[in-house]
């Protein structure tokens, strides 16, 4: 590659990344639900007309990895000829290449000189899409039909005009249509901005040149990825993990990986995994693919331009009807938030055998999804909300795991206490880190968090979908496990917190729906901690002492885990 060409190429790569970032900023600034504007649970992408992703920015890996499947499906089902300037297609069908029902993609064709050049798209979590549970996270769903309104790729805008029939169907099936109206406009508005920017780029470089540059960027990323894989010793590496239960039956569901590294390619063979679960912890194929990609991308250079080229040397093998590739009409809402990070942890665990110096121990791997709905006593208006918490990340060969982080499959923010309480009738009694929740090790796992919320309204209906409340994030190379998480309730007048199974008879402690709480009841959400790396005995006593002083590790744990009795 000539050098001036490479200068232009990297300029174009930056421009594509910047357009995606700009789309993201516009969505953050204009959207309605906190999971959008505080959580940033969305991703923005640019595709060529062949359906290859040529640009993305620092959003949620799960959506970025699955975006190309959703876009490909849309192009293949509708055909390129179906697109006209000003069209916008919406799509959330997990049985048509999407990751789970709340994730909605909107896609807009970019025309230049009368020709379809490519697409701009974003995928975002719509907080409420109907179905059996407010907030559309039905932890005891047994079919996709209970999880909300399923939309195959259909146009919501045609030549810049609303396709009202489709909007009416959408808005009459969502519990909070006004919020959906605002959020969908934020998504579609950001597409217009990206479309304008793409046109400017096309004017600057010309359509053929930009197509060519996109192709070269894809090849460049592929070459770099192949070179990175080449540095990983050839071999067959196995690892596994389980979902602790599926919300409907109280038994673990196993994810099993056989990872083959051969020269410049990787095969992620998941076919030995358990049959699909009754409850919604099933992953769709694209979730499993995205998790496999994300695992590899976490372990390779941070400098590779992120596009579909990175995925080319990574092959996925699954069997339909298993937990890693759910068959219709199985439910899958938790597959994207809970199973995805477990799958990625498994990929990293397998590769830790080959490249220990790059690997991380397991993380909390739970979105700690907490949903609630009710009528706000101040306004009389019905609301729902999707709330998430961060968990401890796994330690690595060079540093302790970060505490209270969004799981690896997302890159979302928390909702500030002051924002949460301004919008919903809760009082937060504490939001802190959990001492001793990080797995001990030469490098310590990150800590989970603890959040206690008190109901301020006559009633609030709550649902939850979590994992690693009975299991734990593993350590690597002698590192200890992180602490389990959990969700607990204290009814008004009670002396202590109990599990929801104890208090309400739910099948699972961590996965339940539609529990009605009353004023004064309290909920406590504990996110799990991350695993440690290396034997605790190898940790410097200075670091142990510092952890005790800062309050991350108790004196007892310092003595028991690290033999530090000062």
């Amino acid at each position, binding site marked *: 590659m000539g050098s001036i060409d490479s200068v232009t190429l990297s300029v174009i790569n930056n421009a594509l990344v910047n357009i995606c970032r700009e789309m993201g900023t516009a969505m953050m600034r*204009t959207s309605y639900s906190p999971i959008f504007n505080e959580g940033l649970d969305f991703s923005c992408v640019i595709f060529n007309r062949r359906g290859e992703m040529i640009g993305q920015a620092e959003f949620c890996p799960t959506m970025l990895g699955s975006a190309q499947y959703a876009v490909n499906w849309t192009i293949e089902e509708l055909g390129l000829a179906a697109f006209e300037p000003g069209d916008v297609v919406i799509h959330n069908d997990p049985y048509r290449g999407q990751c789970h029902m709340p994730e909605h993609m909107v896609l807009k064709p970019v025309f230049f000189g009368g020709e379809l050049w490519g697409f701009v798209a974003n995928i975002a979590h719509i907080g409420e899409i109907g179905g059996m549970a407010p907030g559309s996270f039905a932890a005891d769903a047994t079919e996709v039909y209970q999880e909300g309104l399923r939309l195959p790729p259909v146009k919501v805008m045609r030549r810049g005009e609303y396709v009202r029939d489709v909007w009416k169907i959408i808005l009459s099936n969502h519990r909070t249509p006004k919020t959906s109206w605002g959020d969908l406009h934020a998504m579609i508005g950001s597409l217009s901005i990206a479309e304008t920017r793409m046109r400017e780029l096309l004017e600057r470089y010309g359509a053929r040149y930009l197509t060519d540059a996109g192709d070269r960027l894809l090849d460049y990323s592929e070459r770099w990825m192949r070179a990175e894989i080449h540095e990983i010793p050839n071999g067959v590496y196995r690892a596994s993990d389980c979902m602790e239960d599926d919300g409907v039956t109280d038994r673990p569901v196993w994810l099993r990986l056989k990872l083959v590294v051969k020269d410049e390619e990787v095969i992620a063979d998941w076919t030995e995994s358990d049959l699909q679960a009754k409850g919604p912890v099933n992953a769709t194929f694209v979730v499993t693919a995205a998790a496999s990609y994300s695992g590899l991308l976490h372990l390779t250079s941070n400098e590779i331009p992120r596009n579909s080229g990175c995925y080319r040397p990574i092959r996925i093998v699954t069997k339909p009807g298993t937990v890693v590739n759910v068959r219709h009409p199985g439910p899958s809402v938790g597959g994207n938030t809970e199973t995805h990070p477990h799958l990625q942890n498994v990929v990293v665990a397998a590769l830790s055998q080959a490249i220990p110096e790059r690997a991380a121990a397991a993380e909390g791997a739970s979105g700690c999804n907490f949903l609630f709905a009710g009528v706000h006593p101040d306004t009389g208006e019905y609301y729902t909300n999707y709330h998430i918490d961060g968990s401890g990340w796994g330690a690595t060969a060079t540093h302790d795991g970060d505490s209270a982080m969004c799981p690896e499959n997302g890159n979302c923010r928390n909702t500030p206490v002051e924002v949460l309480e301004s919008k919903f009738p809760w009082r937060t009694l504490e939001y802190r880190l959990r001492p001793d929740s990080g797995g001990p090790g030469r490098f310590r796992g990150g800590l989970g968090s603890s959040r206690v919320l008190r109901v301020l309204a006559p009633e609030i209906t709550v649902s939850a979908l979590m994992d690693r409340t009975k299991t734990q994030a593993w350590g690597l190379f002698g590192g200890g496990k992180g602490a389990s998480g959990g969700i607990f309730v204290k009814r008004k007048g009670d002396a202590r917190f109990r599990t929801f199974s104890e208090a309400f008879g739910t099948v699972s402690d961590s996965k339940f729906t539609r529990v009605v709480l009353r004023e004064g009841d309290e909920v406590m959400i504990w996110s799990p901690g991350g695993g440690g790396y290396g034997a605790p005995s190898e940790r410097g006593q200075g670091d142990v002492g510092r952890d005790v002083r800062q309050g*991350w590790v108790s004196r007892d744990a310092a003595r028991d885990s690290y033999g530090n009795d000062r």
Partner: protein
Amino acid sequence: MNPRGRVRCGIDTGGTFTDFVGLHDDSGELVASKWPSSPGRPLEGIVGAVNQSGLPPESIGFLILGTTVATNALIQREGAHVVYVTTEGFEDVLYIQRMNRKYHYSYEWTKPLPFVERRDCLGVRERVDAKGKIAVPLTAAAMDELGRAIAGRLRGHRPEDSALAVSLLFSYLNPGHEARLREFLESRFPGVAVSVSHEIAPIWREYERGSTVVADAFVKPLLRRYVGSVRESLASLGLRCPWAIMKSNGGHATARSAEGQPVNLILSGQSGGIIGGKFFGELANEENLITLDMGGTSCDVGVVQAGKLSYVTNYEIEWGLPISAPFVDLTAIGAGGGSIAWIDKGGFLRVGPQSAGAVPGPVCYARGGTNVTVTDANLTLGRLNPDYFLGGRMTLDPEGARAALEELGGSLGLSAAGAARAVIDMANENMANAIRLVSIERGLDPRDFALVAFGGAGPLHAGGILGKMGMRRAVIPPHPGLCSAFGAALADFRVDKVWSTNYRSDRVEPAEVIEQFGELEVAAREQLRREGFAATPDVHRSISMRYAGQNYEHDVRLPATDLDGASIGTAFAEFHRLHRQLYGYSISGEVIELIRLNVTLIGRIAKPRLADPGTGGPLEPCQTRPVDFAGGGPVACPVYRRDQLPAEVPLVGPAVVEEVDSTILLHPGHTLRVGRSGVITVRGT
């Protein structure tokens, strides 16, 4: 203002030089000087530069300093021992942060560390709720208990090196508890600096507010000390005039006000540049400007639209450590003369953000630097004069630069000249990207703007950037290297006041809004008087609005005239329009929330009249040398001295115009003209 002193002075402490500019109020005559900066000892440069200027102390009437003390303390993490006080149960918020990460696929990145240790984060029993009502009262017993805990945390630290930061939940709605705590802490811990969040940053989101108040506390003792030593140094020079420090908002504050809220000084050292750039841009009759301040290590880019600066309310010291305060909207990137060129793992050429600094500096400084820099590339292409760098005070080594570029070119398959052009192209592209950030990403078309290029290296790169951006005109101020000090000397007084509200468009009483604006203005005027401005200020009012349900606001301006009910209604219509313009849609019929009322008062100071250059006279080059422009090999290029150029005589490129602190590269086909006050305008093709 001291009646005897008639010179208004600006001082800019840069990484390599401390620049001084004095302006005679009456004549507009300009006095300039430069003195080497001593790392870590800013006062030596200030004293040196003032002495060097030769101005008698009694002639100086007002002095404004730009300082990087606060910025450097934060970047180098050398500040006070901070104890942080917050609502019980939320002691970890500064460590939890926002839960997201800088890179989406990386195990290498870790969260930034707050400027306070976790064990120094203390909770106090109290609670204000989301409506501003007190849910748990703050008792004397709770304060006593807190006092004992703080005393324990301060033990072993000198009071003058310690600071207390307070941020309680919902204090922006009801500051009562914070105000009581401040009083208690000040009497219990005399001599220890105290920062409270409702004064420093009355904004919602507990992490962002807490992070801001901790940053304020972290630099407060240093700023007190800095202000104290400046006071002493100025006294030792016999200077008795009032003096002030540049704020991040492009205004300036008296020493007392500055040391009270140092969080407002983060961009003190950088905001002078854009003020200076705006002044010279306007002298060239341009009111839409993009300013480009390119020095040795970094480049600051700003926008002036219709004669107005734009502002932002957030700044990050590093990713994930936000500071909320009014900032002139500047984008800083690591692109300067000293920026290092390197090849990344994938074989791409990169330039910056690492800089060779002044020592060892570029290869051509021959001080042991081995990394190719932008300056080396310029020298290799003949664009810089090896014998007239800093007016000849320093000789450059072209052979060394060429050899280093040959080596770099080897790995790219390029000649030394080819590699040099690529390095410059990449540096220009980085700056162009920064320009896109402040223009295109905000919906502004850079082609409607003139580029004001200054800093030592700006005029050398202006032509290349014009071409890249499709911009048509560049403005080069006189003494481009001194523009920041000049800007400090010209800075207006500026006070920003904010009031959080929860009004909605469907049930707001305009009279109440108007009354609130009135109260804000009274408070702002009072502060302006305290800061030394007695005349009538300009008043700017705006309301930060959003659709009910959204989470982020946009500022809608109100008329400068007296407000009435109709002006509030007009503002709602304007919000719909603005939303449509920015995002391509508006939601008609949606309720609009009024989140903040904003008042800004600007105390204008008289702008100087600079001497015009002589007209007529011949255009005579002082030499001719081969210069390599983009592609096509070197061409014989006439070289001029700026002070010998006659006014209003067009000069067509290729040409090079040299002056002591900068070099202008005039590309083939571009036309240069010296105008009023010695300001140069370059027209592109």
